[in-house]
């Protein structure tokens, strides 16, 4: 059997089996899902990209197989999927409806692999929808406020998916084939109006999943209220499917004459990243904060792709990979806090650093990567992005990105401070470090973040081959991945990552030694209640925690932007629609005679119209 089919059968069959297993032998469930996922990962890595599978369904020719581009995203999916499943064995312990959870979890991972292996639009859409509803079922897993939150996700996904479907059928009507290669080959032969319409419709579809403004309103709550072990995949891998789709559209379906599309997409993404960052800054729930942050980060990725330059695309893809890594670490860390403490509301928790040190380390590393500070991987991506934008003349775009990523420092600090730093309140004294099966995935992912900062080659190598499939030929000196440490922009300016790392680490170690060697042993720890307070003595019950209205001044400064959320417009629109629908409903007024009159009136109309217009 073809390993592609085997892959899907394993995933989907395994998902169903997990559901059944949970009914009868719940003890084996966790082991089963983890082993299944590891097996699938193995299968995935052994599949390779040359494998092609052709078949016909309903007279539609379909093709499956990985390309180097989809393989790159596939790596994200399987790695994150495996780690998140390992994580969730501990995270989900003791919750109910686990069969339901794992089934949909595996379904969505399977569907993502399906999307990636689709070489035709129909199977792409097919798996896309499976991914949508399976993720939707996990989004509503927690069960509170399902009607608003879940529906919002579903409505927007449906709008996206259906505009995609519309584009797909229109493409087919012109080209007569759903195969991606055929579509790519002949898309520019069709009228440019349709061409643009198709691109826009497809991008609406992918834009919803990647939570681009103004289609993002589902995302914050969907991300924040799913179980964190899934959100790690959701934000890390699932939203990348939208990115993958954007890549397909931007590089293959938008002709270079239509530079305006690229421009518009990039600006939308930029606005997304700025606004989402601002929203993130004013959140006080760690999960929501990260959710908005995800939206913002995907904005960067899409800006990179839309810049349509070699460096920009590379930056976009690199950030996509890296975002998957650090954002899922962060979600996992927040999940760990949630599990150990019971809440992620940062106005309620503080000072966990000494209780959960390893979680803090993972968070810190990921935050540094997220903020794009050297010497971690985030910086590499950001640097490439900026250079790409500057050298390709997107001056104002780069300002937007800068604004967004500078403001990102605010929430980066917020999340570190909110959960781990600050006053160590006695109520958290009993909190313990998260179990090992939760820590290990986080630390592994943190390790990737660290390594990618100085030796990004192991990510850039697959990205380069992916880009080759998009038509971007590599201009980096081709060496082994560990030698790929110096990045150039098109003007020849460079950054030498190893030098950066050496200098930072060197100075850091010297300074640390300087401050530590003499006297650190004699230092003693004092509680955070013992602080300078203008002479007053702080009692244990005094609230010295500063968490509420953390960034109030900033909030005041950006007030005009927050006055009315995009969400509200949708709500108003929905309400208007419902009123209209209620009006339509009055047509069926309950009186049977009226129905008969409708019939006669319709007949009369038809007779008039029929003789007048239908040419009888």
């Amino acid at each position, binding site marked *: 059997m073809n390993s592609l089919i085997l892959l899907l059968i394993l995933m989907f069959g395994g998902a169903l089996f997990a559901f059944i297993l949970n009914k009868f032998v719940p003890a084996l469930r966790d082991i089963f899902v983890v082993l299944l996922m590891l097996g699938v990962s193995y299968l995935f890595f052994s599949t390779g990209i040359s494998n092609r599978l052709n078949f016909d369904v309903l007279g539609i020719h379909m093709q499956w197989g990985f390309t180097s581009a989809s393989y790159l995203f596939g790596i994200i999916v399987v790695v994150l999927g495996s780690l998140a499943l390992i994580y969730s064995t501990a995270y989900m312990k003791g919750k109910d409806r686990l069969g339901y959870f794992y089934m949909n979890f595996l379904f969505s991972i399977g569907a993502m692999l399906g999307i990636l292996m689709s070489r035709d639009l129909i199977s792409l859409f097919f798996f896309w929808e499976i991914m949508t509803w399976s993720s939707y079922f996990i989004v509503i897993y927690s069960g509170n406020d399902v009607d608003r939150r879940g529906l919002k996700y579903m409505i927007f996904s449906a709008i996206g998916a259906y505009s995609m479907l519309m584009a797909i059928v229109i493409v087919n009507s012109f080209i007569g084939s759903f195969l991606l290669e055929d579509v790519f080959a002949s898309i520019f032969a069709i009228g440019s109006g349709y061409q643009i319409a198709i691109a826009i419709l497809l991008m609406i579809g992918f834009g919803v999943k990647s939570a681009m403004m103004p289609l993002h309103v589902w995302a914050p709550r969907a991300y924040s209220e799913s179980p964190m072990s899934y959100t790690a995949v959701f934000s890390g891998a699932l939203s990348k499917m939208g990115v993958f789709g954007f890549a397909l559209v931007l590089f293959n379906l938008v002709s270079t004459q239509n530079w305006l599309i690229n421009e518009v997409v990039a600006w939308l993404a930029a606005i997304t990243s700025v606004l989402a960052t601002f929203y993130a800054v004013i959140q006080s729930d760690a999960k929501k904060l990260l959710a908005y942050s995800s939206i913002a980060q995907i904005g960067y990725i899409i800006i990179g792709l839309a810049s349509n330059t070699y460096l920009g695309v590379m930056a976009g893809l690199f950030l996509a990979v890296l975002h998957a890594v650090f954002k899922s670490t962060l979600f996992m860390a927040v999940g760990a806090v949630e599990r150990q403490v019971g809440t992620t509301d940062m106005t309620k928790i503080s000072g966990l650093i000494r209780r959960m040190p390893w979680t803090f380390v993972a968070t810190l590393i990921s935050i540094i990567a997220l903020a794009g500070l050297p010497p971690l991987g985030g910086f590499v991506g950001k640097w490439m992005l900026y250079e790409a934008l500057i050298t390709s003349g997107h001056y104002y775009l780069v300002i937007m990105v800068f604004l967004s990523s500078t403001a990102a420092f605010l929430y980066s600090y917020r999340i570190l401070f909110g959960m781990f730093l600050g006053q160590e309140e006695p109520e958290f004294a009993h909190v313990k470090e998260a179990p090992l099966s939760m820590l290990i995935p986080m630390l592994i992912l943190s390790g990737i973040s660290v390594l990618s900062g100085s030796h990004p080659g192991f990510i850039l190598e697959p990205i380069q081959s992916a880009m080759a499939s998009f038509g971007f030929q590599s201009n980096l000196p081709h060496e082994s991945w560990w030698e790929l440490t110096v990045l150039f922009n098109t003007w020849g300016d460079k950054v030498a990552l190893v030098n950066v790392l050496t200098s930072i680490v060197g100075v850091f170690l010297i300074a640390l030694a300087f401050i530590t060697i003499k006297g650190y042993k004699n230092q003693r720890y004092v509680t955070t209640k013992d602080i300078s307070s203008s002479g007053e003595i702080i009692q244990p019950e005094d609230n010295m925690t500063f968490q509420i209205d953390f960034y109030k001044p900033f909030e005041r400064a950006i007030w005009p932007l927050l006055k009315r959320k995009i969400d509200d417009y949708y709500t108003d629109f929905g309400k208007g629609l419902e009123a209209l629908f209620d009006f339509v409903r009055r047509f069926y007024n309950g009186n049977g005679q009226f129905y008969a*009159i409708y019939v*006669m*009136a319709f*007949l*009369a109309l038809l*007779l*008039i119209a029929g003789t007048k217009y239908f040419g009888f």
Partner: protein
Amino acid sequence: MMKRFFIFLILAIVGYYIVDVVSQIPFGENRVNVGDYYLDKSPSELKVSNTVTAIVVNYRGFDTLGEVTVLFLAATGLASIMFRRKRKGEKDIRAKKASSRIIQIGSQILFPIIILLGAYVFIHGHLSPGGGFQGGVIIATASLLMLISYRKFKVNHSTISWIESIAGIVFVLLGVTGLILGKTFLENFLPTGELNNLLSGGIIGIIYVAVGFKVAAELTGLIDTLLLNNRPEANKEK
């Protein structure tokens, strides 16, 4: 008022078109159609003098089977719609008070005659105007007469359903027999006899007799059901 005017308007439009269309149909002309074939074949091949009967029972016998079914369903449906749990000690009462003596005796006299007439009509359906439906309806009027004359005239629903079922089964089985004999459904498999003879037309006569019984039984049952439930005190039921 608005509504009424609107209805007038609609009916005027529809009426205009119906008139317009119908007036284009030439009246009284002999058009070439399937009817000619029936007029041609019915006396010669089927030996049935009443062509309408030949059409109803043979050429378009399938319609008639459907028609019988419709009646059967109407009876069944009606019974199901009117079905009501009987209260304890409740008796079947149809009219508030008994009819006058004159009516009672008159009905008694007329009853057998009407039944006889009905039977004649459906037995001679293939020879003269009339047939199973007509005969059946005539017989049903006889029972209607009795039902309105006598307070306690009882229609035995069990008998009626026996008659109904057997007559219906006879009809279908006659059709299926044709099928079994290698012909088509409802095809005549009996000798056709002589034109204008009582024993002519093959299965047509038998079918019409069955139809007659069936219609009579169904209509009787139908009327009875409607009357049975039409009691003033039943109105209070909610």
